[in-house]
């Protein structure tokens, strides 16, 4: 069973990400969706769109916000999986098309956490004992064992932050457009050891949209459609209660990646993936994901980071648009925003963010929960036979 080459992306749109105090959900949804309509050459959405898949974690009124904003009388499906929500909405839409239920589907990922009135992440309290830490606190749990086992440290994390901040300066829709240094990162105030301020993604509002259709109809929309090679999801029980968990890997990502590579027919991801957008809610999340996604061997991230391997002009550029670090993390939007960037990269529309070789295969990855859910999407510019 595979999604490979059955579905194509024919339009993308992305709102400005940031503290959008004077912009509503409606504003962001309309901005991103109409950009995607234009991108796909859609001028009669009521006729050309069959259904909407919506990913939002903090929606005030549920998916009706999308119907209301776009004045669309269309079937609507809401998808949630923590911070993997965006990619999961894209996966559900792709499956609906592959199943032959719909032909052209709008995928809207958005969130507006800045209306909640909290600065930074709120403490999560559901049961008395749940998660005795903040999001930074529960992702940081892996740092000490990984550092002790493999020798990486705060400096490698800092280099990831520096890279993503730099890439963010080249992205029109990013929130943070400020280049920083390793010293800036190391000297910033601590959030949850080893994470200082710059090791953490900001919290922002944003919306990203893709329009997906049947692969065999894609050229009716544009000449350079991007084909879905795989979308896979990996969910897992809480790793912190797993007696075999070694704190150096997240099985949800490993499983999602294995499934995606099988689907896409990729046997050597380090070679076959040319550009990647990797979940970087915290710098350590990106570091572990290099390895969990199979780009490099487990434990080798330190030397690759030090050599600049994942930088924009490196062998395998990661988070070419600046990632969650520079865009912030409006939860439902992030996965879709990553797909938008990969589409632009594959279509050679990324401007100053163009890597040294033109990519033909791109991967995006979300991870959510503590962490318990992961989703991976692989896109290619060439349609397989």
């Amino acid at each position, binding site marked *: 069973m595979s999604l490979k080459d059955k579905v194509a992306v024919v339009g993308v749109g992305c709102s400005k990400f940031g503290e959008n105090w004077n912009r509503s959900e409606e504003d962001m949804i309309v901005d991103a969706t109409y950009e995607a309509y234009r991108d796909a050459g859609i001028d009669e959405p009521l006729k050309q769109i069959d259904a909407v898949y919506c990913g939002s974690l903090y929606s005030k009124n549920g998916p009706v916000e999308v119907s209301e904003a776009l004045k669309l009388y269309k079937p609507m499906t809401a998808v949630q999986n923590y911070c993997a929500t965006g990619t999961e909405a894209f996966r559900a839409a792709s499956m609906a098309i592959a199943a032959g239920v719909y032909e052209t589907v709008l995928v809207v990922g958005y969130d507006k956490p800045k209306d909640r009135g909290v600065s930074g992440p709120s403490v999560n309290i559901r*049961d008395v*004992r749940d998660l*005795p830490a903040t999001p930074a606190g*529960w992702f940081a749990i892996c740092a*000490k064992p990984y550092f002790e086992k493999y020798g990486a440290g705060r400096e490698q994390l800092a280099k990831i932050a520096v890279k993503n901040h730099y890439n963010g300066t080249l992205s029109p829709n990013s929130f943070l457009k400020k280049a920083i240094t390793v010293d800036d990162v190391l000297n910033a105030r*601590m959030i949850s050891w080893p994470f200082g301020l710059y090791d953490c993604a900001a919290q922002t509002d944003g919306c990203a949209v893709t329009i997906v259709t049947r692969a065999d109809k894609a050229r009716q929309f544009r000449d350079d459609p991007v084909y879905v090679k795989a979308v896979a999801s990996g969910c897992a029980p809480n790793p912190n209660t797993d007696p075999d968990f070694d704190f150096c890997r997240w099985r949800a990502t490993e499983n999602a990646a294995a499934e995606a590579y099988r689907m896409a027919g990729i046997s050597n991801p380090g070679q076959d993936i040319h550009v990647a957008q990797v979940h970087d809610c915290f710098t350590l999340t990106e570091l572990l994901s290099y390895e969990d996604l199979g780009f490099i061997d487990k434990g080798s991230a330190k030397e690759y980071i030090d050599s600049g391997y994942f930088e924009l002009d490196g062998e395998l550029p990661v988070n070419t648009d600046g990632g969650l670090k520079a865009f912030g993390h409006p939860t439902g939007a992030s996965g879709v925003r990553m797909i938008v960037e990969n589409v632009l990269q594959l279509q050679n529309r990324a401007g100053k963010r163009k890597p040294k070789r033109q990519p033909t295969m791109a991967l995006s990855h979300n991870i959510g929960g503590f962490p318990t859910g992961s989703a991976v999407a692989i896109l290619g510019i060439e349609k397989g036979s």
Partner: protein
Amino acid sequence: MSTGIESFGAYIPITRLPHSVIAKKGVKAGGSEKAVAWADEDAITMAVAAGANCLRDLDRSQIDILIFASTSFSFAEKQGASIVAKALDLGTNIKTVDIGGSLRAGTLALQQAIDSVLAGSARKVLVLAADCRMAPPHSSLETNLGDGAAAFLVGSDSVIAELQHSASHANDMMDIWRRQGDTFVHSWEDRFVNLHGFQETAQAAIASLFEQTGSTAADYTRVCLYAPDARNHAGLAKSMGFATEQLQNPLFGQLGNTGTAFAPMQLIAALQQAAQDDSILVVNYGDGADAISFKVLAPATAYLPVRRGVDFHLKRRRIIDSYDKYLSARNLTPSEYPELDDQGISATVQFRNRDENLSLQGQVCNHCGTHQFPKGRVCVRCGTRDHWSAVTYAGMGARVLTYTFDAFYPSPEPPTVATLVEVTLADGSVGPRIHMQFADATASDMRTGLEVEFTLRVIHRAGKRPNYFWKCLPIGETA
């Protein structure tokens, strides 16, 4: 067969507020101080800690009654003893009793316990006294009050101290009180209160005991006197003819007046030093006075493994260097944010999770032997469904696997140390992994592999209620 105290345990919070810090003069070496329950502690958590110390290595199955004495229960309506009984894993076939209202509640509870065992209505009774009283900032009460807890196991088996005689003297006056809804303790003018309240009433109870037994001040090896402060302690001792060397050190300036636990803690300190045939007099005050005499049947070490009494806790100190941190820990700091008015944790969720939350109970898979916390239906390792045996981990040790210092988690003294620990079972094998916070921890204490034990604390106050869960802290020396 004798009836009396079989075991004891104390608890004093590790945090100490120097009086010089209250006066905003900084920390002065060797100066006076008081013990303060920190933000994650209250009368209930302290009672659990003292109770665990008292019951360490002892059989809990014969405890038929738990009596909890306090004037600072966490809830006005909802029992404290029921929470403590669950946290101490005393089972459900137990009568749980709160005794409150009076500072004398600790010795009243102890006498009730002895009466119950004598009457044959209980095999053993656990008596707990704990207080965490709030004094108005910068009042004289603030320097005098301290926080702490005491526990006694009462029974008729291996009795170390037998109650011999007691005399009570009832007295009603408006000397010290806290109205329904008040945060702080109030008192009338000191000179009136101490003369006509404390001194006269305590003297009357002691005189009554002397008369009843034909004894005199010199007949007692050790004398434990409640007193509101050091001056009144000395005054009462002098008026009744007790010599300085008879007096148990009341620890003013080290611990402070710990309310219902104050006289019981002195009794614990006395028992730890006592020799066979010593006679101990305990005098307690609060809406009347009690004078109780105990005969020591055996030194504590005759029957008991090492107890954590008063001395153990006096040696463990963490100095609070900022009065603002203290105010924040007591939730007395105004905030620019509106107070959360949430419903808190669902009572039904709390009900379903009471074994995990209060007893630190998880389970072991009967098929593959994997331990799991929290409980679940399906084994995380072998996938077997519904084939479990419950295990209570609260009394066990654990090992730190990893940790972080979370500066965002709300705390009077960030960062909060969050860890994953792996329980070490009694046979040394590996138990479940539990994600929990460290209590009383500083960054320099932390390392992977650190051995810890568990302590019940207030993990947060969602719904403006204390929500209890276990935290871990480094294993102390068992001296």
